């Protein structure tokens, strides 16, 4: 692996004696999108401000291209001018869209010809060329955020930092902008740190995902790893594991473990010793439901648990169904199958899932 373009080492930030950031190491590789996810108040924005050279850490250091960042003087400004940050609020100046997009370049005293070329390029790429002469204060939320993104892109930063840029937008606008950003990042290969509390955004944009919890980063890895094999219960909950059951490993046969959970026997693939206490994690989309009296499906699955429907919540195209089978198991069912199975409160069902769908957290 090549040297990271941006690194944080032993970062710690204290506010009024309270530690809000405690990160021994975080790296951003050139060209990657590092998505930082975590609940509100986990310290994501603080980390972003420190990595964006906007706030010095209480202790620790940031290295940019291997060079330790000095937190004062002209060198800081020179380093900072290699970065661009987009925040949740568009934070535009009271001027035209065009002037806003030009701002970063003008602050860098780039020649007017270059400014004009870049501005027009990025206005067009963000789909706001027709708004060039509009006053920024008259823009809608989505248009303002496009302007803010264009302003950041026009700088052609070495590192782009995005702090929940879509959190304040309505879902269709957010989705549109997310797709646009995804395309731009792919084409341009900007090194990006993307902070969000929305796991879908992280999945769509992130090459790697860092999970933040209470100022720390307990897990960093590929999206499949963080989402499929969360290392703690809190991360599991945050990344969308809805069934988390405490149990004990009672048997092992060539990598296939038997876990006893509240009277149920669950088979799982994983690494844990017999007798060890574990948490059984199951994503709702990996659980299949059939009626107890219905025909048998998903024969290859190792786990079949009988239970009764406890309740069902509609979520647009899907239903979240809670099944009581000793302990509750949560499943996501398409609206179509929910209706086909005519599930209602108390319907006896069998929940089915593969041993490989089960993730075990050792305790």
């Amino acid at each position, binding site marked *: 692996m090549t040297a990271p373009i941006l690194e944080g080492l032993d970062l710690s930030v204290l506010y009024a004696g309270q530690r809000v950031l405690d990160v021994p190491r975080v790296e951003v590789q050139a060209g990657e999108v590092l998505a930082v996810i975590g609940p509100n108040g986990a310290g994501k924005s603080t980390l972003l*401000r420190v990595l*964006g050279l*906007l706030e010095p850490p209480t202790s620790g250091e940031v290295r940019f291209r291997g060079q330790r960042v000095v937190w004062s003087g002209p060198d800081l*400004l020179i380093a*900072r*001018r290699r*970065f*661009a*940050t987009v*925040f949740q*609020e568009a*934070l535009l*100046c*009271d001027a035209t869209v065009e002037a806003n997009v030009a*701002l*970063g370049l003008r*602050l*860098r005293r780039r020649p007017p010809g270059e400014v004009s070329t870049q501005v027009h390029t990025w206005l067009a790429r963000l789909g706001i060329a027709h708004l060039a002469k509009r*006053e920024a204060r008259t823009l809608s939320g989505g248009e303002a955020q496009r302007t803010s993104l264009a*302003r*950041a892109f026009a*700088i052609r930063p070495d590192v782009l*930092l995005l702090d929940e840029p879509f959190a304040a937008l309505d879902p269709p606008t957010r989705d549109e902008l997310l797709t646009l950003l995804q395309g731009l990042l792919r084409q341009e290969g900007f090194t990006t740190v993307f902070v969000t509390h929305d796991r879908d955004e992280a999945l769509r944009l992130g090459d790697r995902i860092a999970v933040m919890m209470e100022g720390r980063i307990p897990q960093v890895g590929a999206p499949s790893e963080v989402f499929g094999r969360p290392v703690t219960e809190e991360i599991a909950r945050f990344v969308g594991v809805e069934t988390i059951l405490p149990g004990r490993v009672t048997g092992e046969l060539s990598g296939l473990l038997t876990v006893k959970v509240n009277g149920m026997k669950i088979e799982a693939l994983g690494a844990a010793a017999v007798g060890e206490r574990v948490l059984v994690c199951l994503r709702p989309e990996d659980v299949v439901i059939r009626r107890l009296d219905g025909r048998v499906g998903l024969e290859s699955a190792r786990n079949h648990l009988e239970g009764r429907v406890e309740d069902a919540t509609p979520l647009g195209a899907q239903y979240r169904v809670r099944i009581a089978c000793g302990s509750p198991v949560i499943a996501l069912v398409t609206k179509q199958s929910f209706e086909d199975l005519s599930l209602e409160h108390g319907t006896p069902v069998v929940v089915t899932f593969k041993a490989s769908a089960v993730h075990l957290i050792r305790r």
Partner: protein
Amino acid sequence: MELIWQGLLEAFRLIVSGDPGVFQITWLSLQISGGATLLSLLVGIPVGMALALTRFPGRSLCIALVNTGMGLPPVVVGLFVSIFVWRSGPLGFLGLLYTPTAIVVAQFIIAAPIITGLTIAAMQQLNPRLRLQLQALGASRWQLLWLLMREARLPLLAAVMAGFGGVISEVGASMMVGGNIQGQTRVLTTATVLETGKGNFDLAIALSVILLVLTFAVNYLLTWIQQRGRTP
């Protein structure tokens, strides 16, 4: 009614005929109050920005003092400036008593807190995250301050208008430190007081109208700058 009408006619005549005495008084008023406002801007905007944008112990006290200063009675300012520049006073050796400079000093003391206080308010009504955003876009310290001033240009111009309005209209301090000496320190307000006292109502009204027109013209200019390119 007749009196006011006559006064208005006299004012019109004086303005149109370019009466040298009236012209001199008007020009002096504009110079003194304009100068005092300019000085207040040079001091008030940096101080106001510093108070608004930094944190230090005693900051609230400073802001409270500035805000109190916004309501300084001109006669109190006149009194203290008089004491200081009185021939036997601490600054008596400067020989400033009854000079236009003394009026500028007094008016500066009146306008500076107004401009400082309104600058503080102007800066504080900006989104606090805008500073971070501008820094993140690569603004140096001076560029940051310039951009923040530009963002707050509307309330800052209102501060200029309030400062100028406060001093062009005050009479107490100008009278006390200037002495209302004809041809030297007589300004529109002090002249109006004098002419009213003498019963020359038509001249007093004329001077008042000129004062109003002058104030209007200056504020119109500032408002025009403020509202340029703005559609509601």
